[in-house]
């Protein structure tokens, strides 16, 4: 167990170093950083001075070490377009993205589990067929189309919900939240549903297959034989045993939710990290792109590591298979 944890941790560090090399190469070799920072009329001597002050004349390996050292202290340089430290820009926008991602995940879990349980227990009901149609659409339609469709329905036609932004936010220390105001909550509804729809279909299908599987097992038959109520069997025994894979998938998907927020945030002009990243790609703002890559990778790697380790603790059957696979 300890060996497994250690091996996974070393692997995770390896991935982060690889990501670090990629984002450093982006910063250093894709375009000249000095050209991006100064105006057209800057003289050669001034350019050389900036070059020296940035340490771009040092050996590449020294520069890489310094870049990683800075990144570990959450320093990613200065944005080309905003002329502000990238870390400040990211920190300012992180609460918006995290709040959106958490709400989307909660929505996906709640609806996904309910729909999955229902379609496993009532396999031929018309509602089940409706759920399956929804899940096919959820997979086939690109996220941005779903977002546009919702804006057209609920903002343009009905005028119920705001089509862009976060509404009013409340500052709690450095964190900003839209959960405490009415306009903030209203602004959260459509982006959360748009972002969570794909995860919802995933969870729904997972819960459905797991439930059908569990319902066939001996202990369910035994529970029936003991004369337990159907409700107790379904929710007390069957559903509880489907929860481990569901929580694992939802956990592993959280990183993807944050990455996919790029699209949702653009559709709804949500002031989060994803929108910042899209604007950075359009304006070739390499420091922001590199920093975003490092941040998202760190979230991904950490979640994967934690889930892997927790999973082996919760379900000992997996220990042997996991160590064999790697």
């Amino acid at each position: 167990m300890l060996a497994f944890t250690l091996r996974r941790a070393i692997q995770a560090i390896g991935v982060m170093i690889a990501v670090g090399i990629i984002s450093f190469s982006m910063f250093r070799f894709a375009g000249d950083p000095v050209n991006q920072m100064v105006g057209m009329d800057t003289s050669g001597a001034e350019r050389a001075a900036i070059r020296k002050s940035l340490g771009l004349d040092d050996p590449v390996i020294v520069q890489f070490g310094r870049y990683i050292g800075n990144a570990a202290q959450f320093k990613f340089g200065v944005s080309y377009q905003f002329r502000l430290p990238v870390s400040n820009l990211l920190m300012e926008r992180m609460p918006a993205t995290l709040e959106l991602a958490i709400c989307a995940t909660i929505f996906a879990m709640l609806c996904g589990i309910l729909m999955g349980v229902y379609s496993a227990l009532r396999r031929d009901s018309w509602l089940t067929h409706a759920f399956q149609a929804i899940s096919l659409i959820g997979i086939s339609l690109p996220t941005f189309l779903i977002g546009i469709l919702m804006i057209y329905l609920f903002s343009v036609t009905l005028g119920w919900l705001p089509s862009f932004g976060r509404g009013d936010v409340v500052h709690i220390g450095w964190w900003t939240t839209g959960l405490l105001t009415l306009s903030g909550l209203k602004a959260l509804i459509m982006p959360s549903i748009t972002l969570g729809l794909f995860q919802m279909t995933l969870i729904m299908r997972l819960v459905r297959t797991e439930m059908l599987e569990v319902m066939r097992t001996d202990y369910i038959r035994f529970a029936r034989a003991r004369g337990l109520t159907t409700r107790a069997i379904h929710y007390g025994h069957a559903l509880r045993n489907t929860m481990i894979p569901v929580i694992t998938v939802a956990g592993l998907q959280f990183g993807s939710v944050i990455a996919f927020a790029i699209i949702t945030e653009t559709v709804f002009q949500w002031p989060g990290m994803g929108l910042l990243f899209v604007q950075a790609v359009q304006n070739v703002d390499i420091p922001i792109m590199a920093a975003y890559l490092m941040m998202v990778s760190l979230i991904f790697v950490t979640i994967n590591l934690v889930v892997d380790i927790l999973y082996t603790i919760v379900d000992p059957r997996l220990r042997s298979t996991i160590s064999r696979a790697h």
Partner: protein
Amino acid sequence: MVKRALDSDLFYSFRRSKITMVAAAVTLLFFLLAILASVLSVQNPFDPAQLQLMNSRISPLWTSDGQSPFLLGTDEQGRDVLSAILYGMRISLLVGVLGVVFSGAIGILLGLTAGYFGGAVDGLIMRIADVQLSFPAILIALLINGIAKSVFGNKLDEMSMLAVLVFAIGLSFWVQYARTVRGSVMVEKNKDYVAAAQLIGLPAPVIMLRHVLPNTMGPILVIATINLALAIITEATLSFLGSGMPETMPSLGTLIRIGNNYLFAGEWWIVAFPGIALAALILSINLLGDWLRDALNPKLR
């Protein structure tokens, strides 16, 4: 040959599924429309000389303000929406197909190499695949896009942008091919025909490409079909985010991006029809892919 094809299991299961037949017909129709775009449309939407501002913001033909020959209305610049969709579909399908071919080529070559040689080569390729698989393709495609812009300058012309998109999609979707091919190769390479080929002294690339690869084609075909839908979605998403095809040569995603700006002005047709076209295209390709997966893999039945 035709008789054999009509008699096959594949065709039988095709005939039995009505949804699949509809999906195949729709997909074929879209490809035909895209190929015949220049014949079918009333104007070339990429040619600014043919656009007249007088004709801007005309609503579809069946509404009270509709004007012939603009069946689905026009946009802000007097561009006929139907023509723009046909030409845009052409771009979307072109990027999708080229992206699938490119990612397939990378994935198949790396998968063959990893599976055939094994050892450290295999370890390295599969480790890269593992790491890449944990990141969403759209993020990787966006990053490659940004790097390309930074290396070649921000203002790329239309054709180079198309090439960048194909490249970005290719590098984002190779992993699944590589994994599948590697798995099949590891099974195939222990069979007698491979040993025989090695005994008569055929070089490794010949054995891999001429003898092993044809035996792994089934799953590759399934992945390619499903990936075509994914590649089209990715291209549309990149274009929607403003990192794809420029407005001078719009794909379906770019058209949706443009139309989205006029949604609040009540001009729904500029965004609705490209959106419907994209959704129908993806849905029918997905249905075809699902059918192909079930038909070629009897274990799943």
